[in-house]
């Protein structure tokens, strides 16, 4: 029965080797630390940005939008009333109710309008919503800066404004704005809430009013222009194709179509994070490989002696491998700690944003799994880097070494 290689004697020898090469050991540990730290900070930051954008954009917009296709022939229409009302709404509703992947859906009537306050006139995109349905689609309460959410629209003569739009109109909750539609009709609405999605392109134009009010003003009683669908599994957008196959005269758009730049941005950030971290850990790994390799070459005589006095090949492998494991563990512990510290500092750093996003500090994602991953990354790299020199050490033949003198 062979004795276990993990024993105090082998550990003692390994530690002695590490301690007599303090500088190299510290350098190797720093190398691993740097790799792990970079990984942690990059992942925390990049996924922080991704999550922020996901949250702001994708939660503020539906996963699939169903709209009407403008029919080819130009119908005679009264000037300014051109909205493309959706046909066969009930059938589509029925279809959506029976789809497994649909989490909820809501009707909307969307129309451009001019909003007029005492100081400014600005274009806006008016979303006529059914407040009780829409509440299930968009978590507006979390986005509210002041006032009330969708429920306040039930009164009929109220409007919810994006924060940038409200600022430019110079209105606050309780003020009045005049909504001028393209058919010439106008209506005074009370601002009942101001929200922010953190994305200027949304906060600049989006407004919510009651769908019923809008329908009445536009003389489009019971007509809607869009159905917004939220999916249970957002990555599965098969529904889009199924819908367009089953219903004519509708257009369907999924979140990937609507947010191509953000989707690509997320991908680029992911690739960047993984490749840079991988490259750094690779360099750290090569550093350890190098140090151990040189040690093994320098220590061939010592290894030969250890072998003659009773240390088996597996003891030698353990003695050298445990050195890189210790370096890896230390580097990973320091790396994750430093990574957390730097990420924390970044997360409290004020961010002077451009117009694109509105956020006070850098978004950071402190997910525990990234720390575990970074830790494992560091340890696994060093173990791999240490394995080959250790194997090499175990193959040292005492006879050739002793004869070689």
């Amino acid at each position, binding site marked *: 029965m062979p004795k276990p290689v993990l024993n105090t004697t082998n550990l003692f020898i390994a530690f002695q080797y590490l301690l007599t090469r303090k500088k190299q050991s510290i350098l190797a540990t720093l190398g691993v630390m740097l790799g792990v730290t970079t990984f942690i900070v990059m992942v925390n930051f990049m996924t922080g940005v991704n999550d922020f954008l996901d949250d702001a954009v994708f939660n503020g917009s539906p996963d699939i939008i169903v709209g009407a296709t403008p029919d080819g022939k130009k119908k005679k229409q009264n000037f300014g009333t051109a909205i493309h009302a959706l046909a066969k709404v009930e059938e589509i509703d029925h279809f959506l109710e029976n789809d497994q992947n649909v989490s909820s859906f809501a009707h909307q009537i969307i129309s451009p309008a001019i909003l007029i306050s005492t100081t400014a006139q600005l274009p806006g995109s008016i979303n006529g919503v059914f407040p009780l349905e829409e509440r299930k689609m968009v978590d507006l309460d979390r986005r509210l800066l002041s006032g009330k959410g969708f429920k306040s629209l039930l009164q009929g003569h109220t409007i919810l404004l994006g924060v940038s739009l409200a600022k430019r109109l110079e209105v606050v909750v309780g003020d009045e704005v005049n909504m001028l539609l393209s058919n010439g009709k106008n209506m005074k609405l009370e601002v009942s809430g101001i929200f922010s999605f953190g994305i200027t392109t949304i906060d600049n134009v989006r407004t919510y009013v009651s769908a019923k009010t809008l329908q009445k003003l536009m003389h489009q009683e019971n007509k809607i222009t869009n159905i917004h669908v939220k999916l249970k599994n957002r990555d599965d957008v098969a529904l889009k194709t199924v819908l367009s196959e089953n219903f004519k005269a509708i257009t369907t758009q999924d979140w990937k179509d609507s947010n191509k730049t953000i989707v690509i941005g997320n991908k680029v950030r992911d690739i960047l994070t993984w490749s840079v971290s991988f490259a750094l850990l690779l360099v750290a790994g090569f550093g350890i490989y190098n140090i151990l390799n040189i040690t093994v070459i320098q220590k061939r005589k010592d290894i030969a002696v250890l072998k003659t006095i*009773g240390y088996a090949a597996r003891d030698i492998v353990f003695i050298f491998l445990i050195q890189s494991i210790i370096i890896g563990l230390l580097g990973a512990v320091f790396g994750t700690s430093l990574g957390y510290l730097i990420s924390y500092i970044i997360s409290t750093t004020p961010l002077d944003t451009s117009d694109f996003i509105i956020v006070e500090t850098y978004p950071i994602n402190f997910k525990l799994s990234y720390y575990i991953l970074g830790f494992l990354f560091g340890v696994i790299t060093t173990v791999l880097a240490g394995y080959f020199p250790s194997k090499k050490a175990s193959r040292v033949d005492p*006879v050739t070494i*002793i004869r070689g003198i």
Partner: protein
Amino acid sequence: MILEGTHINKYFYDPDKHQVLKDNSLQISEGELVSIYGESGSGKSTLLYILSTLDTDFEGQLFIQGQDIKKLDSTALTDFRNKHIGFVYQFHYLLPEFNVLQNVMLPALKLREKSRVAIQQDALALLDEVGIAEYAHRPSYKLSGGQQQRVAIARALINDPTLIIADEPTGNLDQKNTDIVFKLLQNITENRGKTVLIATHNPKIYKNSTRTIEMIDGSIRL
């Protein structure tokens, strides 16, 4: 009988096939101080490595304390060496990362038949015997060549092996240290009843051994 080798042949293949050892058989009993001597290239070192179990790539049979060496796998062989064979080389080969005492303790720490404290006591006693006790806690590389060789002898004895193998143990020492080291090796056989096998060029050693084996051109001269 502590060691028995029969019909030992050994070939080198680099650069060409070349027979280094030619059908050597020998027997060594307990308490003997046996010297192998011969010119460089006579095969005495090669024979010594085979008899010390470091080289298992040979033809023939080798029994040490009744154990057929060829029947042990490499791990079992290392354990066997650890327990039954002590080594002394021309160059002392102490490990510079460890102090003198730790160097002596290393084989016993591997064997793990005794507690660390007991091993340390044994090691100190052996260092006292070879006259190095006062340097026990010094880094091993700070000792002189002669002193280091005496530490190496203490290390070879720590597991109380039956066989001590020494490869040119005095080859690198001055006359005074040669005398000290040889005296220690003689004491090992006389006082402890161990078997010592020495490969040497030194006439003073092989003339004072209980038995000498001369190697000529790969064969033991009878």
